[in-house]
């Protein structure tokens, strides 16, 4: 059954709805399927069914609306609570930023700039580390692993994805960070001529590089489990066709699985990037914070992320300080929003290709 529906979708990129075997023969674009769907589940309608349908309809609409209400409430909250720091008298707000940053910043943009920089750099670095490993793991699970190994790996990946971030943070801060020093030291000695790895490597390495590694370990299972499912849905016929044309296994993956999964891989990465951008506890526990625009990833006290900064400063902040922190939260919200928007753009382009 599954085999027929997959093979029928061979001409298309996305697998289409089950039950349209005949439609695909005449309509390669898949346009004929729409009209058929309505009469799928409603053949034996009884009078009672209609009221049930209405209730379900209302519930579904309510749930959908609730999402919008929640989002609106969050935006409203951020704007209202952040407002005093933008509207307040210049002298007062600049004193707030000076006290939050230890005298290094006096205005909002001066304060939030390095934080944005740190947030984006650490999250992007984490994604760069995690992406290739995660896709490798997913390819191994789907195409190379024996069934017994595959089952175990699937289980482990799902388990990793479910571990709370504070556990990763504790493990990272107490075990991984001190253990990584020899490696970072080696990197700074041998690759120190690249400015990114300029030494001396901080010891203990509570640095951007270490924080990115921990975040990468955290987001890897997310990318793996999503891309794994997409690879598994690669049309069997395409794979067989590639092999029949004399392709090796790697060429088969390159020709069929990777193009098929492209947009899915992008959206998985963006979801993971979203988590990395907002990650708080792990970063706070691992990173030695600083407020600069430095690219020296192996040196301590260079960067800080928005989320970790809010968590670290909140307990000691007064009312105007809190609204300054919430304003930085608003900036994080905008960044995440933009990332999602971009992901959507890219996915849509990939889908209609």
């Amino acid at each position, binding site marked *: 059954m599954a085999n027929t529906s997959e093979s029928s979708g061979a001409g298309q990129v996305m697998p289409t709805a089950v039950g349209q075997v005949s439609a695909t023969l005449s309509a390669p674009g898949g346009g004929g399927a729409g009209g058929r769907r309505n009469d799928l589940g409603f053949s034996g309608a009884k009078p009672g069914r209609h009221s049930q349908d209405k209730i379900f309809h209302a519930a579904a609409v309510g749930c959908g609306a609730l999402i919008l209400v929640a989002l609106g409430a969050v935006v409203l909250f951020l704007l209202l609570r952040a407002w005093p720091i933008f509207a307040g008298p210049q002298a007062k707000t600049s004193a707030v930023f000076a006290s939050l940053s230890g005298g290094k910043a006096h205005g909002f943009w001066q304060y939030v700039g390095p934080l944005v920089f740190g947030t984006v750099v650490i999250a992007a670095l984490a994604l760069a580390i995690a992406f290739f490993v995660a896709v490798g793991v997913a390819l191994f699970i789907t195409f190379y692993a024996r069934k017994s190994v595959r089952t175990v790996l699937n289980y482990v990946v799902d388990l990793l994805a479910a571990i709370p971030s504070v556990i990763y943070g504790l493990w990272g801060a107490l075990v991984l960070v001190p253990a990584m020093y020899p490696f970072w030291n080696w990197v700074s000695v041998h690759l120190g001529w690249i400015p990114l790895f300029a030494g001396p490597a901080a*010891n203990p390495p*509570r640095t951007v590089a270490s924080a990115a590694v921990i975040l990468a370990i955290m987001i890897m299972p997310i990318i793996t489990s999503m891309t794994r499912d997409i690879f598994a849905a690669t049309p069997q016929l395409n794979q067989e066709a590639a092999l029949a044309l004399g392709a090796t296994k790697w060429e088969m993956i390159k020709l069929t699985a990777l193009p098929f999964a492209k947009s899915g891989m992008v959206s998985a990465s963006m979801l993971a990037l979203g988590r990395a951008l907002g990650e708080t506890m792990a970063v706070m526990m691992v990173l030695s914070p600083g407020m600069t625009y430095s690219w020296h990833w192996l040196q301590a006290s260079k960067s800080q992320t928005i989320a970790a900064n809010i968590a670290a400063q909140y307990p000691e902040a007064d009312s105007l300080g809190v609204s300054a922190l919430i304003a930085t939260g608003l900036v994080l919200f905008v960044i995440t929003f933009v990332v999602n928007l971009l992901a959507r753009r890219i996915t849509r382009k990939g889908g209609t290709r």
Partner: protein
Amino acid sequence: MHSTTCKRLIAVVSSFAMMAALSACGDNTPADTTGATTGKNSGISGEFHGAGASSQQGAVEAWIATYQSKNRNAKIAYNPSGSGAGVSTFLTGATAWAGTDAPLNDQQIEQSKAICKSGTAFDVPVYVSPIAVMFNLKGVSGQGKHLNMDAAVIARIFDGKITEWNDEAIKSENPKVNLPATPITVVHRSDKSGTTNNFTSYLKAAAPNDWSYEPQENWPNEVGQAAKGTDGVVSSIGQADGTIGYADLAKAGNFGTASVKVGADYVAPAADAAAKTVNASPLRPMPKGSKRVVVNVDYATSVAGDYPIVSSSYAVACPAYKDAKTGAFVRDWLGYVLSDGGQKVASDNTGSAALGGALTQKALKSVNTIQAK
């Protein structure tokens, strides 16, 4: 199927165990000894709240435990929300007293008129503890081990001027120690902290030529690494070879500590040496408010046996409360806190320095003027 039954069984058993543990938690009222203590009961009753400096937390908790065992009807709670937050809460009238690492400023004295029945709030020192310069250096550090350092060397290390452990400046003060060529990693606080304020005050006072920054709660330079809270600093020091930082002596654990040069000798950090410094320090003249006892810690002391890096923490109270019952409580409570017994309880529990002598007499004099009727 079998495994799910097994899991359910485990779940049921563990939830019972948790319930048992929780109910045990709720049942910790001490054994009843009313017969023995009725004579001593001072008639203080009711619920009282304080808030403020987290540095005092351990001591205040010990005081509460012993105080409540003598005054069965008093229920006291302390919220370690931080000095600034604690004083703000006190100035709204929500708490009976506040704990703070920094003395009140003029504006706060002015604001206190609104919540005190008469007069303005005052502060008295209740908790003093030594701050240790602690380090982790393979082959050199260890529990109870010290390196000799004068203020100039400490200032230059924490300002990034001395970067290796076998620097001539450190070697010349420790001729008998075999110092390795390990790089020095400075660890300081990333958050605002009274400890940072005290430590930078010491550096500024004792080594003005090598420390150019003003005393402040935020760490002033970009040297080394930053960590959140005392525990963050201590755990960072423990993670690498060659680290050095500053924190409450009670947290020194297995690290080595610096014996600081005072006069001609080196003094190891100790509670009684810190108390000696504070007790001998002059009072700060306070232009605003009355009854205030604020110590101008003599960080640059040269008296033999004084340990100069100390943190002093204060209690804030009103001379008269709108609610007489609260006034009676605060007078009795702070009287107990400043008594020899109270200071000993704090010292036994947190390793703080027991105050005494003329300074405590002055503080008690202020406390005893609180109106209880």
